[in-house]
């Protein structure tokens, strides 16, 4: 029969509601009698709270309640928990109350909440909460955080150090550098980036006194983890007394992974005011308080022999974690970073040291790629720079160092199961018409433009994660995924997944997996997610894990269904279960022409009038938990061509080619969309984006008036291609595609600009001013070529 399943370009089931304005995001939900919360935030980067005077504000029109840090403390509300500490033990992890009462540590830190009849009235009153601060010196500079004269944020963290972490062995690295013929060294800043999901965060909490339970609607990538942290660590209630619903979520990019103090406060407060309480962030609040990503300062060195063979890599990084530890803040700058420093290359010795530090800035957590972009950026900048310094050539140096034997044990813990890096590179060279580059460069020059080309051959570790590894390295949770398949008598199915979509198309792609496995039309498969009230425990969506781990759980649950269904079919066809085969939605008895469709089997199992009830339970529902045996390792080659206008310093990405190996592809349309979006994040980081704090610790570009986010005219159409070495350890052979573009693109763009303007060092973002300054200082030699 054949249904459209894995590999087909199936149009998205979820589109219908989004294109007609019927999507339901958190702010679209209104509960009867709801009140509105507005937070009073610190205007200081670092200050003591001397007093909070609410006397004027509490008498304002429409105000129901105002709560301060004192109220939170008096109620014994737990602090914001940290869900990951590298090495297992707590590092210098100071407490973070949901509302501060003694001291604030970044602009945007929360001091009080005003709860009123409308947002406007709450805002009117919030303006009348008088907080007296004693400003303290502050520091937003990651490089200076550990200096002796730098202001200290937390007593618990001397010298602002959260942790010193390292991976790899130092001695072999030192020995390799000692005998190296060539060393390439770069000082690299990986710019602090603001995720900027288009849907601002929101939370709407309601308390049911009859059941003594809470319901929280919130913008989360992982509602079960929010439930765990909020119930068990903050409110001190049974998880069963809290239902967390993440309805449609308008983008996340990591910023909706953490559990936030706003979620804690509205949930706590809704019981105190006996009314639902809703909060919706505005964009400036989002810039100030959505967790940021990156913010590394690194010295990176690559040692080579005379043939350009890599001998060793040495990395020393200072990583800002912001003013507090966000839920998974320390993960991005440790295990998601140091473990992928080998890239796609055979590097015998690697040693990486990371110092995690506090600065008076918004807390850091995952941002699309999370650690892997930082690692890939430094490796690919080093490789390209080394190729230019040695004259080996940017393509040749990669070919000389690619890993070719799998499995491959890196010097930084991970073992790559499979890959084929050269095929992707060759395909990208062809697709990008690399051979024609010189001609295009001449043409650009004739138009007064400087053209350059840059490469990035990346690898990432995705499909988070084997739970035993997660536990060993310090995660407070497992990282398996769950699936439950529930049947309806007429043959349609509901599939509960513990992952959560923010636009990745799970409702379609997961349905395709079920369609292929069970032979049920995509239209008859409903994917249910994002509600702890109806979905079994799961870990949410991040780290390009949803298909590789969540999809594998669905696949495993389908296998269980098939196993049982074969017994039902055997009964129906009076055969032995061992003789039943299942293909394309049809059960057959080997060696006969007897067949039963999956629909017939479902009906028989659900309406068991003629069924071996003494041997088997009725029904076909099954549940599966899938814990991956290893990470997955997507890889590929991205090639960027830019034109720089020497008069203005403006860089235009004129051509971008991405060839990726994501293993098997379930829906090529969705995968391409993920590549386009990921690359655009990467172009944004390379050319435009950086959270800028001034001397006083104010974020000076906390709106779209000043923070540059890629617009349609900032990026080209992309050329996308695939190679495929299926993942060896999950049942679908898939690797994950959501982060690849954000990981691969930044070094490709910067390598292209440095090629175009003939410079070695260039930090992101490559703003017009910065590029123009370089062109001015290195003369017009290049322009005259």
């Amino acid at each position, binding site marked *: 029969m054949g249904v459209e399943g894995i590999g087909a370009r199936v*149009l998205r089931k979820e589109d219908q509601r989004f294109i007609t304005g019927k999507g339901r995001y958190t702010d679209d939900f209104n509960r009867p009698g709801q009140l509105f919360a507005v937070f009073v935030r610190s205007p200081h980067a670092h200050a003591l709270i001397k007093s909070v005077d609410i006397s004027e504000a509490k008498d304002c029109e429409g105000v129901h309640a105002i709560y301060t840090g004192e109220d939170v403390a008096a109620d014994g509300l737990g602090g914001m928990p940290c869900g990951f500490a590298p090495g297992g033990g707590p590092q210098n992890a100071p407490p973070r109350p949901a509302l501060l009462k003694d001291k604030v540590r970044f602009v945007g830190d929360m001091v009080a909440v005003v709860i009123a009849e409308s947002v406007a009235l709450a805002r009117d009153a919030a303006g009348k909460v008088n907080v007296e601060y004693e400003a303290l010196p502050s520091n937003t500079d990651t490089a200076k955080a550990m200096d002796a004269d730098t202001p200290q944020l937390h007593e618990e963290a001397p010298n602002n150090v959260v942790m010193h972490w390292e991976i790899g062995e130092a001695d072999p690295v030192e020995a390799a550098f000692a005998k190296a013929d060539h060393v390439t060294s770069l000082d690299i800043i990986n710019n602090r980036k603001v995720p900027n999901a288009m*849907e601002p965060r929101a939370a709407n909490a309601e308390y049911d006194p009859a059941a003594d339970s809470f319901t929280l609607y919130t913008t989360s990538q992982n509602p079960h983890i929010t439930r765990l942290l909020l119930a068990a660590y903050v409110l001190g209630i049974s998880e069963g007394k809290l239902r967390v619903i993440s309805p449609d979520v308008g983008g996340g990019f990591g910023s909706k992974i953490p559990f936030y103090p706003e979620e804690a406060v509205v949930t706590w407060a809704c019981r105190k005011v006996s009314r639902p309480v809703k909060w919706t962030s505005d964009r400036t609040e989002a810039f100030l308080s959505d967790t940021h990503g990156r913010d590394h300062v690194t010295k990176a060195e690559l040692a080579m022999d005379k043939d350009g063979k890599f001998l060793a890599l040495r990395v020393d990084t200072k990583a800002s974690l912001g003013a507090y530890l966000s839920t998974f803040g320390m993960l991005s700058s440790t295990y998601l970073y140091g473990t992928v420093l080998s890239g796609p290359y055979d590097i015998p010795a690697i040693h990486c040291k990371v110092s995690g530090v506090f600065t008076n800035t918004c807390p850091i957590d995952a941002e699309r790629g999370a650690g892997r972009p930082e690692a890939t950026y430094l490796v690919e900048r080093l490789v390209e720079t080394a190729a230019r310094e040695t004259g080996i050539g940017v393509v040749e140096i990669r070919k000389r160092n690619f890993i070719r034997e799998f499995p491959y044990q890196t010097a930084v813990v991970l073992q790559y199961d499979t890959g084929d890096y050269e095929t992707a590179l060759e395909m990208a060279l062809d697709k990008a018409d690399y051979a024609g580059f010189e001609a295009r460069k001449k043409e650009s020059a004739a138009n007064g433009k400087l053209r350059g080309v840059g490469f990035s051959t990346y690898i990432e570790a995705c499909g988070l994660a084997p739970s035993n590894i997660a536990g060993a390295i310090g995660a407070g949770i497992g990282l398996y995924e769950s699936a439950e398949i529930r049947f309806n008598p007429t043959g349609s199915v509901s599939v509960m997944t513990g992952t959560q979509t923010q636009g990745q198309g799970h409702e379609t792609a997961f349905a395709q997996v079920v369609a292929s496995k069970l032979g049920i039309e995509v239209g008859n498969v409903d994917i249910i997610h994002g509600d702890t009230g109806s979905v079994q425990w799961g870990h949410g969506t991040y780290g390009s894990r949803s298909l590789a781990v969540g999809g594998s759980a669905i696949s495993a649950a389908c296998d269980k269904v098939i196993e049982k269904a074969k017994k039902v079919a055997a009964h129906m066809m009076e055969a032995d279960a061992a003789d039943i085969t299942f293909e394309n939605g049809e059960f057959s008895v080997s060696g006969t022409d007897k067949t039963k469709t999956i629909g017939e089997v479902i009906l028989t199992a659900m309406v068991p009038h003629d069924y071996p009830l003494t041997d088997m339970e009725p029904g076909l529902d099954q549940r599966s938990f899938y814990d991956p045996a290893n990470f997955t390792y997507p890889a590929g080659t991205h090639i960027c061509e830019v034109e720089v206008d020497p008069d203005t310093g403006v860089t235009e990405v004129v051509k971008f080619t991405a060839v990726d190996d994501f293993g098997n592809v379930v829906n090529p349309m969705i995968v391409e969309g993920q590549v386009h979006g990921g690359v655009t994040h990467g172009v944004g980081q390379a050319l435009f984006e950086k959270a800028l704090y001034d001397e006083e610790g104010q974020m000076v570009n906390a709106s779209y008036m000043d923070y540059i986010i890629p617009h349609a005219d900032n990026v080209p159409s992309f050329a996308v291609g695939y190679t495929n070495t299926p993942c060896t350890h999950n049942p679908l052979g898939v690797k994950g595609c959501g982060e690849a573009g954000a990981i691969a693109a930044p070094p490709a763009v910067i390598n292209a600009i440095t090629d175009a303007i003939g410079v070695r060092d260039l930090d992101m973002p490559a703003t017009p001013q910065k590029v123009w300054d370089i062109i001015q200082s290195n003369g017009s030699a290049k322009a005259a070529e």
Partner: protein
Amino acid sequence: MTTVSMTVNGKEVSADVEDRTLLVDYIRENLKLTGTHVGCDTSQCGACVVHVDGKAVKACTMLAAQAAGSEVVTIEGLANGGDLHPVQAAFHEHHGLQCGFCTPGMIMTAVDMIERAKASGQKLDEATIRSELEGNICRCTGYHNIVRAIEAAAG
């Protein structure tokens, strides 16, 4: 409070609101049409674009009172019964959306763009489309498929 009346998606509507009420809040809070979104505070993201008297405007940068007496069309009013507007259909066919949050504003902008281009006999090439999308931000798609969808719908 002032009574503000207008026609929204072909229906006469009326509500008592403060004069400071923005058109987008009137649409979302008073009319409960939540397809029109708010993604920024500075009139730049375009998630709130609706049509007022046949022209695309940012509903976050217009008072409801300014629109009194006007004909307003929101994303909910674009489809003709069960039939999608060709631009809606093109966004679906070309995968021009992911999380869907910017999508209503994108579609309303695209409809306006295509109608203006048709009226003036202008050809909507890729560069023009990208330039015309200056007031709409998407963080998911990288714009590639939005451009494809608009090209297809423009014909």
